[in-house]
C-alpha cells in the first residue's frame, strides 16, 4: 500500500521538527518520543465479544488516551492464535503492531508440529495485560458441598465426574489437568467449542463440574445457580471471601489464574517496548478501565517487561510438565 506509506512519510516529515524541538527542550519522557505518530494495531486471536477481546478493547481504549493515538484492535481468529501471530509478523516490525495472546503463545508450539513461525524467537514480551482468576464450580443442587467432598468422590469413582473444557491447552484446561495429576484423581473430560455452553450444561445438569474463568461464570453466580468450590488465584477473591484457593486446598501446582499479555515482533526497539509497557501499566490504574473489567472479574495488571518475561518462563515450566505428565497431545 504505497499510498499509505507516502501519507505516513508526510506525517512523519511534518511531525519531525516538532518532535526534535520537544526533544531539545527535554520535555519528553524518553528519546523515542517520535512513537507513536500514527494509529497502532493490536491483533488478537480471540474472537470478537469474548473475554480476551473485551479485555483488549477496554485496555487499549485507555491506552489510546495515554498515548494520544488511536489503538486499532483487530480479531484474527483461528489456528490456536497462529493466524493472529502470523498477521502481526507480516506487518512491518516498526513498533506499530502488537499481539495480544494468552497461554496459546507457549502451548501452541508444544502441541503443534511444523509451525510456520517460532513464537519464542519471533516475538518479545511486553507486559502482562490482565489476569482472569479461575473458578472450580458445581451446580447449586450438586451433592458436593466442598472441594474435599468432590475429590473424595472422584478418588472413589475414577472417570465418573464429568467436567467440561473448551480449548485444549488453555489455562482452564491446564488447571483441570493439574488438579487430576497432582490430586491423584481422574475426571471425564468433555470438550466444548465455547465456554458459555459449559456454564449452561453445568446448570442444566449435563455436567458435574466446571473449570471456568470467573468472567464466564459470573451470570450463573449472579443467578445463584452454581456453587464455587475453589478458585485458581494467588489470593482469595474479594467478591468470594469464603472460597479457598487451590493452594490452600493442597494443590499449589494447580493454583493458576488465566492471563492475557502483549507481545511485539522481535527487533522492535526496547524503547518502544518500554513505552507500550508504561502505557498499559498506566491504563491499568485508570478507574474508567479497571472498574469495567473488574465488574466481570477480570483484573488489569500491566506488569514490567522483566516481570512478564519471568512470568512466562515460569509458565513454560508449568505447561511443559503438565503436557508431558498428563500426556496432552493433539
Amino acid at each position, binding site marked *: 500500500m504505497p499510498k499509505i506509506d507516502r501519507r505516513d512519510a508526510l506525517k512523519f516529515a511534518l511531525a519531525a521538527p516538532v518532535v526534535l524541538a520537544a526533544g531539545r527542550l527535554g520535555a519528553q519522557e524518553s528519546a523515542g518520543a517520535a512513537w507513536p505518530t500514527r494509529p497502532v494495531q493490536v491483533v488478537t486471536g480471540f474472537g470478537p465479544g469474548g473475554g480476551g477481546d473485551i479485555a483488549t478493547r477496554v485496555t487499549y481504549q485507555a491506552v489510546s488516551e495515554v498515548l494520544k493515538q488511536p489503538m486499532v484492535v483487530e480479531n484474527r481468529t483461528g*489456528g490456536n492464535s497462529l493466524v493472529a501471530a502470523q498477521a502481526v509478523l507480516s506487518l512491518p516490525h516498526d513498533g506499530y503492531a502488537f499481539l495480544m495472546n494468552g497461554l496459546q503463545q507457549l502451548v501452541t508450539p508444544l502441541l503443534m508440529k511444523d509451525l510456520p513461525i517460532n513464537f519464542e524467537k519471533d516475538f518479545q514480551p511486553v507486559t502482562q495485560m490482565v489476569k482472569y482468576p479461575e473458578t472450580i464450580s458445581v451446580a447449586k443442587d450438586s451433592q458436593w458441598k466442598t472441594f474435599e467432598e468432590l475429590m473424595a468422590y472422584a478418588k472413589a469413582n475414577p472417570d465418573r465426574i464429568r467436567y467440561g473444557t473448551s480449548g485444549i491447552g488453555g489455562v482452564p484446561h491446564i488447571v483441570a489437568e493439574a488438579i487430576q495429576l497432582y490430586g491423584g484423581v481422574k475426571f471425564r473430560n468433555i470438550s466444548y*467449542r465455547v465456554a458459555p455452553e459449559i456454564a449452561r450444561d453445568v446448570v442444566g445438569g449435563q455436567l458435574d463440574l466446571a473449570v471456568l474463568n470467573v468472567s464466564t461464570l459470573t451470570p450463573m453466580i449472579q443467578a445463584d445457580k452454581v456453587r464455587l468450590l475453589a478458585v485458581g488465584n494467588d489470593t482469595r477473591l474479594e467478591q468470594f471471601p469464603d472460597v479457598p484457593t487451590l493452594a490452600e486446598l493442597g494443590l499449589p501446582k494447580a493454583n493458576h489464574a488465566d492471563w492475557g499479555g502483549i507481545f511485539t515482533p522481535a527487533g522492535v526497539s526496547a524503547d518502544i517496548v518500554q513505552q507500550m509497557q508504561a502505557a498499559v501499566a498506566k491504563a491499568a490504574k485508570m478507574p474508567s478501565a479497571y472498574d469495567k473489567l473488574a465488574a466481570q472479574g477480570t483484573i488489569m495488571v500491566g506488569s514490567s517487561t522483566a516481570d512478564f518475561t519471568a512470568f512466562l518462563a515460569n509458565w513454560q515450566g508449568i505447561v511443559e510438565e503438565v503436557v508431558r505428565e498428563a500426556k496432552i497431545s493433539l
Partner: protein
Amino acid sequence: MDSFVSLFHGFSIALQPANLLYCLIGTLVGTLIGVLPGIGPLSAIAILLPITFYLEPVSALIMLAGIYYGAQYGGSTSAILLNLPGENSSVVTCLDGHQMARKGRAGPALAVAALASLFAGVFATLVITLFAPPISQLALMFGPAEYFSLMVLGLIAAIVLAHGSVLKALGMIVLGLLLGCVGTDVDSGALRMAFGIPGLFDGIGFIPLAMGLFGVGEIIRNIENGHHQSVMQTKVRDLWPSREDFRRSWPAATRGTFIGCILGILPGGGAMLSSFAAYTFEKKVSKQPERFGKGAVEGVAAPEAANNAGAQTSFIPLLTLGIPSNALMALMAGALLIHGIQPGPRVITNNPEIFWGLIASMFVGNLLLVVINLPLIGLWTQLLRVPYHLFYPMILVFCCIGVFTVNNSVLDVMLLMVFGFFGYMFIKWHCEPAPLLLAFVLGPLMEENLRRAMQVSYGDPAIFVTRPISAVLLAVAAGCLVLVLLPAFRRTREVAFQEES
C-alpha cells in the same frame, strides 16, 4: 400486567430522539449490509463494536440490534433478486424467492418478505415481553442429547426439502457433512482435511460456500444460457402482492413465526434451522407441495417470518441467562461488557432501561424497516432490468469484496470461486445445493453433540431415548422418514419431479 408497564417504560426510552436515531441508523446499516453480498451482520457489528464505546449502553445495543435484524431482512433482498444468500438464514429464501423474481414477481416477493418479517417481529417482541424469564428455562433443558436429536430431525427434513431424486438429496447431504468435517476436531484438537493451511484450521467458511454454490454458480449458468437481457425471464408483472398472495401468505407467516420463536431460543443452529424448518413444514402442510421451488409465495413468507422471529427471541438466553446463543449474540454480550454491564439474570432488575428499551426498540425497528424497504421495492425491481452483461461483473466484484472482508482472507475468495464452479456443476446435474448447506451447518454441531452426549452418559446410547425431549424429537424424525419412504408419498414426489423436468 407488570410486563406491559415495563414495556411502556421501554417505549419511553426507545422513542427518545437520540435512540430513535440510533435505531434508524442501525436498521439502515443493517439493510445495506444485508443487501450487499457477503458482508454479514457479524462483520459489520464487529467493526462497529469499538464505536459503541462512545454511546450510552442502551443506544449502543439498540443500534447493534437494529443492524442484526435489519441485515436479516436485507439479506432476503439479495437472495430474492440475485439468488445470493448473504446470510445463512436467507438460503431458504433463495429457493422460491428467486424463482418469483425470475417470473417477474420480485415486487410481491419483496413485499411479502417485508410484511412477514414485520408480523413476526412484532409477535416475537410480545413473546419476549410476556414470557422471557420462563422460556429461558427451555435453553437449560436442552443438553447434548436434545441437540443431537434436533439435528437429526433437521437433516431428515432436508431430504423432504429437496425436490427431485432422494438419492441425489442424500448425496448432497453427505457431501455437506464431509465439507463440515474440515478443520480442528473439537474433542481431540486434531486437524482434519486442513492440508496444513492455517486458514482452514477453523473449517471452511459458510459465506464462500453458500455464495459460491448459489450466486456464482447461477451467474455462470446465466452467462451460458445467453440471458443477456436481464435476470428476469418475463416482464415485471406487478409490484404489490395480489389478494391471492396475501391469502396464501398469512397462515404461512403465522406458522413460520411460531417455529422461529421456539428455535430462536435454542443456542446453536437457531436462525438457520428455523427458516429451514418453517419451509419444510410449509411444504408438508401445503395441498400443492409441487409448487414449492418454483416460486411459491408461502416459501418466502414462512422462512422470512421464522428467521426474523428467531433473530429476536435469540436475545432471550443472553438477556436472562447470560448465555449467547450464537456468535452474534456473543458480540452483543461484548457490547454490554465493554460498558461494564454483565449480561445475565441481573440485567432485568439492575438495568431495566436496557432490557425494556431494547425490546421496545425492536418494535420500533421492525416498523422502520418496513417504512424503509417498501418504497425501495420499485427501485430494486428496476435494478433487475440492468442488462445482464453489465450486471454480473458488478455482482461478482461485490461478492469478492464481501467474502474478503469477513476474515480479510484471500483464501476465502479462492474458495468462493471453487464453490462457484461446483455450484454450476450442481445445476447441470440437477442437484440441490440447499440440503448440502444445511448438512454443512448441522453436521459439525451434530457430531459434537453426539460425542458429548455419549461422554455425558458414560457411553450409554439410551440417553437419546430416555430423555423425554430427545425421544420426542427422534420420534418425529422417524415419522418424517416413514413419510419419505411411504409409497403414496413417493408417488407424489415422482409426479413433482416429472413436472419439473
